[in-house]
């Protein structure tokens, strides 16, 4: 690969990363919006807002998918605890 070709490849990959990041953030926003609906549904059904059993299930599934995708599952667990934190925050704020 020539220096010029390498530079072009780098540019292309960076554009792709930017677009993936946009997708990630919009998926997070969608996830938070759905969580909000869940929060209202729980309230209407008289269920508690916090559901640790469900959270543990989400984390376990994410770790398994991470391994299948060849990712570090421990890091993905950490990321998902943060994702759950975002969802929890909108449900608790309701």
């Amino acid at each position, binding site marked *: 690969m020539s220096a010029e070709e390498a530079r072009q490849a780098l540019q292309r990959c960076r554009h792709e990363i930017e677009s993936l990041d946009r997708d990630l953030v919009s998926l997070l926003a969608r996830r938070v919006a759905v969580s909000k609906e869940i929060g209202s549904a729980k309230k209407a059904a008289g269920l508690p807002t*916090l559901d640790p059993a469900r959270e543990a299930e989400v984390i376990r599934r994410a770790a398994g998918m991470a391994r299948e995708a060849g990712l570090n599952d421990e890091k993905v667990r950490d990321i998902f*605890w943060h994702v759950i934190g975002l969802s929890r925050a909108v449900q608790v704020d309701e």
Partner: protein
Amino acid sequence: MIIITRSNITDAELDAIRERIEQHGMRTHLSRGVERTIIGCIGDESLLAEVPLRSMPGVEDVLPVTKPYKLASREFAATPSVVRVGDDPSRPGRVAAFGGRAIAVIAGPCSVEGPEMLRESAEAVRDAGGVMLRGGAFKPRTSPYAFQGLGSTALKMLADVRRSTGMPVVTEVMDPRQIDAVAEHADMLQVGARNMQNFSLLSELGRVKRPVLLKRGLSATIKELLMAAEYIMAQGNRDVVLCERGIRTFEQATRNTLDVAAVPVLKRETHLPVIVDPSHAGGVADLVAPLSFAAIAAGADGLIVEVHPDPANALSDGDQSLSFAGFRSLMERLGAFAEAAGRSLGAAAKETGAAA
């Protein structure tokens, strides 16, 4: 509580055990060793009283952690921890490792007094075999009228010297408001003895992605030091190095009394690396070498030593600072003690890859 698993446990079995624990609102922490893998439980353990963890596939034993510190306790980790400083791909340069076979020596001036003296100090420390540079930017002084440090100007000087010499730097952070600036410029953040129980500072440092050097308080017990480490670790930052720097006793011939026994006690109680500050412990330059030898013999993973180009004219702690020649001499004599303790000296540093 910790769960010791069988050596042949599968990932799916580990996941199932962790889910069982996390269902009760607790968190888990995994520590993989060669011979065994440990799941540590973080949170209110009484919630697990009725859960039959012992009968789950892959579980060998379930043990209570009776110590008030959990994440810091020896039982929580399968092997002693190695804390790597300067291991940031965005920062080319050396990496200093604490807790491995090599004894890591940090040295530098008590306070950053100017760019020239800092650069000279960094080069002298590096050439003598030191792996990291220390230098105070914010100085907690007993008197409000004493020199308080150069603050953010000194932070920039530290970052410049890191770039030019490749030496990772450690500097003290006194207040949560300083954390961002210090983390931006330094590779390791120091909590001084006087701040060891500043719990809001400790919690904030737990959220930072840089290793922390936690110094033992003037009158703090070993248990209190470990609880302070637990504060940092509980917020997610597991890279903590403990530092014994002398405690306050009735003895007045030395600035403090180096608690040599704290080193083996800490090594027994925690998986975290332990280093010793012979400069503050003794308070005079003559005591730095013998106290360093004692520290290494007792099992310390490293030292933090004050070095100044002109100790007689230092703006702070001149009496306890070594000259460059004094530091070289110390390092030359330290090798034999390291070897006698089954350790090596100075081999901790290695080059990292180029910037990403």
